[in-house]
């Protein structure tokens, strides 16, 4: 256990270092993009005079390292700063969208993860039967189609033809949980279709790999049923690879859904990030990217810890 705790602390420290590196990379990337905030906001109406005034007002006339250091100094003290353009505190700007993103990701994950694992087990259980092949074909088809297309198909079927669900999310601030689930149903379904295949295939493959091992042969010789063999004997040993792929997919549900957000007009982080990059709103981009990076780091860490905890040989290492 102590070993696990030390690993946790170590990885957390490494994670912070990674975040620092990420913040530098993001800052430099935005500097490298053509144009700055002033030019992006003023667009066609930019003139040398109003550009100069804009830059003076935002401190863009300062050298790059000064601007980075002043942001970083604030960040260390827990001050995320303000949006360069709207002047709103970043916290205020991001809080609700972050909640929306986590809600949608959580909703999709609640359906997708159990579905994928169960389908994977079933597919392994009935390997090479029609059922196995059907599950594979359906899941692989869903993942092979671009996500916006999956979205449009669902909209056409459930919103236009059947009229069961709204075609755009259009969340109101005080929506009840039921209303929220109703309005995010189609985007959550789209995401489910996209991420299920990956996790399902991994579950199936890991289980089938294990089935060839001597200890499972032993169990089979002792007369254990195929079902008991897989669920009781094989599954606990397949946790590590399954958890790893689940972690990757959960992180994807949080950081990679901008296209689904656009199709369903869902106010999540993806759209905010795209808009902010387009306007070179450095402080917003920085915070959003760091949140995304932190999500990846934490999910990775969690999956590693679970993998170790599920493996007695690693957990009780000398």
């Amino acid at each position, binding site marked *: 256990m102590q070993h696990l705790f030390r690993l946790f602390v170590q990885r957390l420290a490494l994670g912070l270092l990674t975040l620092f590196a990420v913040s530098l990379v993001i800052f430099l990337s935005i500097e490298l993009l053509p144009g700055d905030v*002033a030019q992006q906001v003023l667009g066609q109406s930019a003139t040398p*005079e109003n550009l100069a005034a804009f830059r003076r007002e935002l401190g863009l006339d300062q050298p790059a390292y000064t601007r980075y250091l002043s942001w970083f100094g604030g960040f260390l003290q827990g001050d995320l700063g303000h949006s360069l353009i709207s002047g709103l505190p970043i916290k205020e700007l991001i809080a609700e969208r972050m909640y929306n993103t986590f809600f949608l990701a959580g909703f999709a994950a609640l359906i997708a993860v159990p579905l994928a694992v169960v389908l994977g087990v079933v597919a392994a259980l009935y390997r090479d039967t029609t059922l196995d092949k059907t599950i594979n074909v359906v899941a692989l088809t869903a993942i092979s189609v671009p996500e916006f297309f999956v979205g449009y198909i669902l909209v056409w079927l459930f919103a236009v033809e059947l009229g069961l669900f709204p075609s*755009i999310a259009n969340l109101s601030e005080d929506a009840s949980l039921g209303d929220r689930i109703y309005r995010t149903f189609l985007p959550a379904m789209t995401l489910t279709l996209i991420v299920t295949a990956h996790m399902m295939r991994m579950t199936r493959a890991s289980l089938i790999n294990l089935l060839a091992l001597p200890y499972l042969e032993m169990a089979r010789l002792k007369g254990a049923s195929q079902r008991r063999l897989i669920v009781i004997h094989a599954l606990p040993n397949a946790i590590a690879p399954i958890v790893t792929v689940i972690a990757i997919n959960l992180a994807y549900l949080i950081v990679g859904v901008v296209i689904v957000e656009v199709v369903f007009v869902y106010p999540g982080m993806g759209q905010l990030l795209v808009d902010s990059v387009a306007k070179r709103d450095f402080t*917003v981009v920085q915070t959003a990217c760091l949140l995304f990076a932190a999500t990846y780091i934490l999910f990775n860490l969690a999956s590693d810890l679970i993998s170790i905890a599920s493996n007695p040989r690693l957990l009780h290492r000398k």
Partner: protein
Amino acid sequence: MTKYTSNLSIGRRGFLAGSAAVLGLSNMPRRAAAATKGGTFRLAVSQGGTSDTLNPAEASGSQQIMVGWALRNNLTEIGSDNKLKPELAVSWSSDDAQTWVFKLRPGVTFHNGKSLGAEDAIASLNLHRGEDSTSGAKALLAGVSEITAEGTDTVKITLSAPNADFPFILSDYHFQIMPVGADGALDLSGTGTGGYTLESWKPGVKTVLQRNPDYWKDGAANFDRVELLLISDSGSATTALVTGEIDAVQSAEYKTLGLLGRDKNVEIESISGGFHPVFAMQSSQAPFSDKNVRLALKYGVDREALVKQVLRGHGTIANDHPIAPSMPYFDASLEQRAYDPDKAKFHLKEAGLDSLAVSLSVSDSLFAGAVDSVTLYREHAAPAGIDVQVAREPGDGYWSDVWMKKPFFTGSWGARPVPDMIFATAYSKGGDWNESQFSNDTFQQLMLAARSELDEAKRGQMYGDMQAILRDEGGSVIPFFRNFVFARRVDISHGEDVASNWALDGYKAIERWWKA
């Protein structure tokens, strides 16, 4: 149902003192009788983003402009009939078109209870003036030398040179009037005199507006509640309109309009206006410095084909000058330039060239079908020995890195209510936005003279001459004027006229339309 209205007959606004008072009387809108109050209006616009602010100095896309005009008023406005109307200024007058006196509407209060005074108008206009101003409209007020108050209800604006169209300039969406606070600072938070108050402002997502029960304008602001959504994906927007999630949508996707028009619950409107793209050459540089090269490029484009194929008929052909048939002083007697590869070839020869290869920069972010237009232009110009290479540029950073930077590029201009506003902005010698580096002394003299010319006939003649100069000398290929296209559910109504200065009834659908 599909109904295409063309708003071609636009009268000329009355001139200077006296006529302004008449305008004041005719302020009663015709639609007032038919309008019904109440209901919620859910509107989807397509331009804007998460970082949009309520500061009118930064206003650009439809999200900012429409919300701004729901919350606030200008001193003057362009009505549904495309004529200049008094708004917060009840009348104005000038003896010499250089010193303008605007009388403010009495009894108007802001949402916060403050009554409208000269100090509010002055501070609101000064937001766009001075060295520290970051306003996108700074150049429009560059000719203003002084703004002073005369009493509490009169504003005197002195120009450095006469400009008979000055009241039109004040109808620009940047010049919204906001109150000054007790600390003397301008209130940019959304407080205005407009028909709606702000319930929530979430740029890029949804803005909710509540009707202002004390709105001064009669027959306006009919909906109780307005929800304005930003939907950037036109597929999602039209689907939401069809499924009844929204009531009206600012559309730009010409290709699917035919399909949308088949829906019985949806009405499509296509309003011809002055919105136009420009293929602009930097005419101070070779090869564009040669007038014959410019003419060859102008004869090399098949305008009819572009309107038919790119706009699917939702537009009118243009004549290489920015004055649309729907604008005042449009010279209908000026001969329309037609597609003529032989003439293009002839002018190329005159320039001493057998063939010409130019690269034309374009981005689809300018308008739907921009890249298609240039691709077709390439086909049109090929028989004349002109190779127009399509340089497809990213939309991100287009205005800062491509527009006015490349030798030959695509631009896009909105409609202006009067010729002077577009001439002064885009064709004036040495102007910040003179994209084609157009420099013509006769044109420049005519532009200045027309501003102070009080004789309507003479003024019309001058603007006609200027259109001819631009057509023949200018460095801009202007192929067509795009219609404003938008769609609404059939239970949303509007008056007889629909403004053609911007989409969605001059971006004022929120206060002008109603739910039947």
